């Protein structure tokens, strides 16, 4: 299948495979992204991959849309490289003040809290892409038995590290922000730290497994990661 190419304003081109969430399509998105980056034409500013689409941001003072579109056509069949996929273990305290919605998630799905923890932490998740906020990973592959709709009224303040569920997705808030996902736990890990290289803990293509931990472990890890007492 060949994707569609369209202008997204005067300085970006959108490559779209249609609205699907699919591992093979996402592999192709990342293959094109890395091929374009590797070739690094002089008009290229950056690439932004998502589920089934990829944005190529360019400098229109160096190349017009037609020229960029022509050049991009040469990358659409980029080979999917079997790139090294890391398995990142993310420790999580489930429930209590760390995951105030876990009881709701359990009740709504006819499960116990322990079932929710067991189901959520057994799965290996794929990082489709990072977006929305710095370091926010769009994770795929959650077990539908714990799928839960978003809050009707989003919270004004979700602490950094909160692990949430929204429909069939799960994810981790990298920064304190407003948010409408059902919170089931919290990781002490720092998902985004501008002083690190790379600044994000997770990269597209990584696999993630959540490891249940105790509150005491959370405190210890939190202090090591953030350099302060837990809040």
């Amino acid at each position: 299948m060949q994707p569609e190419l369209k202008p997204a304003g005067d300085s970006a081109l959108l490559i779209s495979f249609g609205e699907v969430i699919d591992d093979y399509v996402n592999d192709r998105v990342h293959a094109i992204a890395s091929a374009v980056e590797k070739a690094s034409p002089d008009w290229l500013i950056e690439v932004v991959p998502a589920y089934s689409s990829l944005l190529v941001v360019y400098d229109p003072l160096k190349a017009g849309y037609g020229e960029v579109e022509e050049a991009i056509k040469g990358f659409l069949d980029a080979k999917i490289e079997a790139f090294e996929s890391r398995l990142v273990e993310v420790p999580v305290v489930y429930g209590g003040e760390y995951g105030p919605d876990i009881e709701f998630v359990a009740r709504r799905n006819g499960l116990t809290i322990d079932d929710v923890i067991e189901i959520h932490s057994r799965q290996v998740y794929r990082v489709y892409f990072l977006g929305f906020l710095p370091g926010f990973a769009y994770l795929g592959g959650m077990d539908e038995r714990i799928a839960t709709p978003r809050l009707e009224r989003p919270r004004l303040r979700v602490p950094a590290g909160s692990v949430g569920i929204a429909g069939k997705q799960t994810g981790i808030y990298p920064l304190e922000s407003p948010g409408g996902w059902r919170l089931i736990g919290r990781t002490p890990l720092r998902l985004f730290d501008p002083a690190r290289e790379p600044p994000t803990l997770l990269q597209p293509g990584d696999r993630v497994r959540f490891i249940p931990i105790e509150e005491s472990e959370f405190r210890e890890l939190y202090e090591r990661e953030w350099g302060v007492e837990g809040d």
Partner: protein
Amino acid sequence: MIELLKVPSLLTVQDSGRPGYRKLGVPLSGFMDDFSARIANYIVGNPGNAPLLEFLLAGPALRFNASSVFAVAGDADLRLNGVPIEPWTSHWAKRGDVLEVGSLRSGLYGYIAFAGGIKCERLLGSCSAYPKAGLGRPLKAGDELNLGYAILTGKDSRYLPLQLRPDYSSKEREIRVVLGPNLEHFTDGGIETFLGSVYTVTPESDRMGYRLDGPAVEHSRRGADIVTEPLVPGTVQVPANGKPIVMMRDAQTTGGYAKIATVISADLHLLAQSRPGTRVRFRAVDVEEAQEILRRRERTLNAIEKFLNGEMRAYRIRTFGEERIAFTKVEKEG
């Protein structure tokens, strides 16, 4: 060094932004009004992208603890040691001098540029503050700023003629857009509504996005939500209530609402400077035209830079009944 004495509103250090990290979810950020900010830099002899101060509506009061040359872009009352001075002009400040910047009479964002630029810690390649992610923070009274090295001689008393200053006083303006890329999520009537109606900038607008009020844009049967896709500053998203939201410099990098259009790069600063209540009309141009407009704007900015450096002269001319500014090169003798 500069010491901030009073900070009445949002005051941040900004430069041309933080490209290269959007794939990690880090927004571009940078000058909300790149046109004014670049000119402010040119007036004090800096490259256009040098870090400067961006203020919202009301400017700060600050004290110079070393000599400097500065310029303010924006229609505000300025006082240096209590004496009124002109915006869009470079001024010499001595150690101990106090600059007070008043409220903008029009527009939303003003800029204070210093010769040599503001020295700052570059985080992910830029000085632009994006406080949400710990990349810089809003400035407050008592903060001190260091300036980069610059030869000050010859950089003061540079003046941008009135005709060259951007005018943000109009209560209604036309903003040009390139339609797409999710047009299949809108009905033909919805696209017509978007292009044929007047929208008003609402107070729920900030560096991340401007919400507009006006006739609801109708979605097609595919609906308002899409599988999350990347977006850029200038993108116009339309959620289920049909009211357009224009993404600005601190926009998130991806979004899940259908995108009806993208504001052209040359016009985004016009929207950025639109106060709540400003009426906006959108006009569609194709991508080639948008890029030609941007190239023309770039030539104008380059000419303004050369004019301020004394390498070009500006003349007022009339062509086809319209008043324009023409630039000619200054021939160097010998």
